[in-house]
């Protein structure tokens, strides 16, 4: 709580008017929009991709499964600036595979996808492992097809896990800086995300402006986490006997 209080205090040090001025400056608004928009898209995409990955890891058997399983955690272990460099080498102007997306919004999405995927995989995987196999067999014995069994029985039971993974991926994406600072190019109004904008404000001697945008990011993240928490609470109501 103390660092948050300090941040709020710092953001107000130049007065309320300066606070609104910093927050509503066109460049700050563009950066905030890009950050929240990209984080949302990435969290949604990874909720789907991460769930599929977790499904394959839990339900399928194939050679090299344990290797893949370990590689999932790579973005956790890798310093994100290294991830940024790697992505630049792969998808930059000197791309060995001929894809140059450096300094575009696509690059931002790619980098965020990479660093947030394990959050979903690692929250869905244990839920999927825990799921009662007999519940699926019961559904099939009652005439449900594979698809119906997934939709009506499996999905409702893993949804809380997916939502947790979504919230974590979103929060991580909103705050991400290391992997973006190189590959995004930080073009104001185009590819400058809030974290980089905040860094820029501090470097140009405007700590109160930096704190003001930081507070807005904080509020948005809190709101998303609370919202997801509420949905989670609703989807697990049957467990609270």
């Amino acid at each position, binding site marked *: 709580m103390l660092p948050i209080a300090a941040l709020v205090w710092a953001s107000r040090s130049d007065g309320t008017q300066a606070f609104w001025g910093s927050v509503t400056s066109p460049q700050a608004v563009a950066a905030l929009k890009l950050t929240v928009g990209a984080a949302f898209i990435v969290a949604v995409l990874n909720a789907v991709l991460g769930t599929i990955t977790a499904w394959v890891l839990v339900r399928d058997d194939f050679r090299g499964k344990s290797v893949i399983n370990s590689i999932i955690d790579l973005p956790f272990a890798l310093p994100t600036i290294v991830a940024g460099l790697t992505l630049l080498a792969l998808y930059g102007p000197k791309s060995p595979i001929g894809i140059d997306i450096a300094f575009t919004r696509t690059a931002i999405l790619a980098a965020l996808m990479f660093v947030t995927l394990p959050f979903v995989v690692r929250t869905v995987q244990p839920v999927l492992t825990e799921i009662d196999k007999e*519940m699926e*067999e019961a559904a099939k014995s*009652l005439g449900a097809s594979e698809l119906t069994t997934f939709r009506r029985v499996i999905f409702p039971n893993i949804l809380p896990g997916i939502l947790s993974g979504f919230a974590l991926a979103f929060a991580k994406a909103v705050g991400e800086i290391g992997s973006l600072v190189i590959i995004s190019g930080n073009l104001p109004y185009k590819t400058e995300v809030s974290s980089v904008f905040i860094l820029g404000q501090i470097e140009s001697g405007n700590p109160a402006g930096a704190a003001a945008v930081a507070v807005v990011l904080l509020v948005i993240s809190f709101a998303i986490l609370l919202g997801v928490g509420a949905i989670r609470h609703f*989807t697990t109501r049957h467990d609270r*006997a």
Partner: protein
Amino acid sequence: MSIHVRNVSKSFGDFSALEGVSVDVAGGSLTALLGPSGSGKSTLLRIIAGLETPDLGEIIIAGEDATGVRVQDRNVGFVFQHYAAFKHMTVRDNIAFGLKVRKRPKAEIREKVDELLKLVQLEAFGHRYPAQLSGGQRQRMALARALAPNPEVLLLDEPFGALDARVRAELRDWLRRLHEEVHVTTIFVTHDQAEAMDVASQIVVMNHGRVEQIGDPTQLYDEPASEFVMQFVGEANRLGDRWVRPHELDLSPDPAPGALEAQIERVTRYGFDARIELVTADGSELLVQVTRDRLEELELVAGQIVGVVALNERTFAGR
């Protein structure tokens, strides 16, 4: 609907779960698959349901080959030991599941669910979630759910295994009464011989993936086909290579010369009969069951040496 299992074999890796099993179940009957754990009884039930595929052999349900038919299309109701409740659905939605999947009209579903809730005495619990029910209630819900689509066959895998003794006995009676009402061909798996004897009209005794004997409770007790059945169904005494049921032994306070002698360890009285535990000179244990009157007539006490006379005995060909 009759069920015929023909020469079914099934292996899991190196473990042979079933070896050439054949069983006939008459339509409308109540049959128990009885055996110790690892005997293959659950595997056989799951193969009949279509939850496992046999390596060899076939399953014939109502005169038609069902071996290759998917579980979804077999029209069987299956009840699991640990209920397999859909925990994110209310009791009503659990029971309605099979009907909703079949896209029955809403009014029909409501009517059928009401009827089943009444049958399993859960009328007041329709809007609860499974987590809010006791074990016995959950299993009754699971039964109602299995019965909802009017299955041709009802299969129960150790249905009372996870419940405490009192609820077990209650549900056992209830299943028997239900079967009298509904008359669906029913097969249940159990490792408890008393449960099998109490509920089933036909018992299939299994051991090591094979059928040891098929018969009604009296046949199994009076005419066991093997040493295994002799020991597993009811209590048994071994005298050398001969086998005797506890009630087929009599005791005499002054043994005749040459008769088998044993020392009384303990005498326990139940309602009508008494059980006497003895040890013979070579250290083997015997259990004798006599009526209370006979016990008083003999005036037996612990520590006494008595003669043991077998009134009936059997031998089994070595295997």
